[in-house]
């Protein structure tokens, strides 16, 4: 069978990736979710809280105290929501990143005294309500990101990292770096190409 070798290598890849995915942090997070395991949570805290603080302080507008308040809010959310973590869909660091991102969005909306109370969690989780499995493409992408993100050319990594660290849009980041919007867009495109993340919009509309 011509397809046999492909299937075998896919299966092999899935097994390999499944192993990589069930990293120690994901296991701890599952323990917290399943058994309210404080010891496991303590280990997660010791690892992720300093990373979160480092991450949030890279966002230039947050000083150490405010960053730490957000770290606390995020880690309490992690404890409360851990039972919704699904290790087959996501890695612990990605999941914790999204919890922190959502806490920061809500914080900024509260500070802006938004008249309508819509939580980021509701917006983001609604988008995932039809997702029940992780595609092979997504697993492959995760590996590519792990291997290649740090290898991006500095000017591409700078733009990408600033967008995430500060939770901003690419156009805000362009303005802050005093770069033309087109330059930022092209760096993003080059970075995503280098990470081999194929975007549906580009596949369908090659002229854009």
């Amino acid at each position: 069978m011509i397809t046999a070798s492909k299937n075998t290598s896919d299966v092999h890849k899935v097994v390999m990736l499944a192993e990589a995915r069930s990293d120690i942090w994901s296991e701890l997070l599952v323990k917290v979710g399943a058994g309210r395991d404080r010891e496991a949570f303590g280990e997660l805290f010791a690892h992720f809280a300093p990373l979160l603080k480092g991450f949030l302080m890279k966002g230039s507008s947050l000083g150490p105290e405010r960053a730490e308040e957000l770290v606390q809010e995020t880690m309490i959310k992690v404890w409360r929501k851990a039972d919704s973590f699904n290790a087959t869909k996501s890695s612990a660091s990605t999941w914790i990143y999204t919890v922190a991102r959502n806490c920061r969005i809500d914080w900024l909306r509260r500070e802006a005294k938004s008249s309508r109370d819509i939580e980021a969690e509701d917006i983001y989780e609604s988008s995932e309500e039809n997702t029940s499995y992780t595609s092979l493409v997504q697993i492959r992408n995760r590996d590519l990101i792990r291997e290649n993100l740090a290898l991006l050319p500095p000017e591409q990594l700078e733009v990408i990292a600033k967008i995430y660290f500060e939770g901003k849009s690419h156009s805000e980041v362009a303005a802050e770096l005093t770069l033309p919007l087109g330059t930022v867009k092209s760096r993003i495109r080059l970075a995503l190409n280098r990470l081999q993340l194929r975007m549906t919009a580009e596949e369908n509309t090659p002229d854009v």
Partner: protein
Amino acid sequence: MSNVSRHPDANFLLDFASGGLSAAQAIAVSAHLHFCSSCRSQAESLNDIGGRLLADVEPAVLSANCQAAVFAALDSPVPVKAEIERRPAEVVRGLTRSDQLPALVRQITPVDGLRWRRLSSSLQVARLPVGEQRYELALHHIEAGGKAPAHDHRGTEITVVLQGSFSDEAGVYHQGDFMVCEPGYTHTPVATANAECVCLSVLEAPIRLVGGFKRLLNPFLSFRPA
């Protein structure tokens, strides 16, 4: 699989993953993801970039009482989150298949229901308040086969088809399709003959204000500062 054929570009998905979109824009992207598994998968990969940056960042030293404060809070009661209210169909009036809307759209529907404003014989609009100055979120409803008045766009507009389909000079748009109209783009949307069409739209505050009568006719100039 759906036949979603128009997608947000990489920059939109990236801004969604980073948390850099306004609530109204994020709701539009989320509505598209509800219908589009391939963009969902990409959004998850973009979240993985955030996870990777977090895993690789240089850790910062925590203050002495940080951990104790978090552990002290673990046993405090979890604030009860309001259940997503399932708005009854009659509240999302005019939508014969409101049960198929993404839950999020029903959730942000005002408790006292949508207030539809008729803009032409076949077009109605209802605002979905999200508490933002710069962007207005709204539902547009075109009767089956109905034609919306020709209009242009003063600010960038995002449209996501939630039900039915419509066409304009540039093509046909199906359920889940996500499109961005840049300022200056003029078109005349027409709903497909056999089904009403419902779209979610995000309008950026127009830079120029347009006078009374034209504003009444033009749904996409319905922005009114809160």
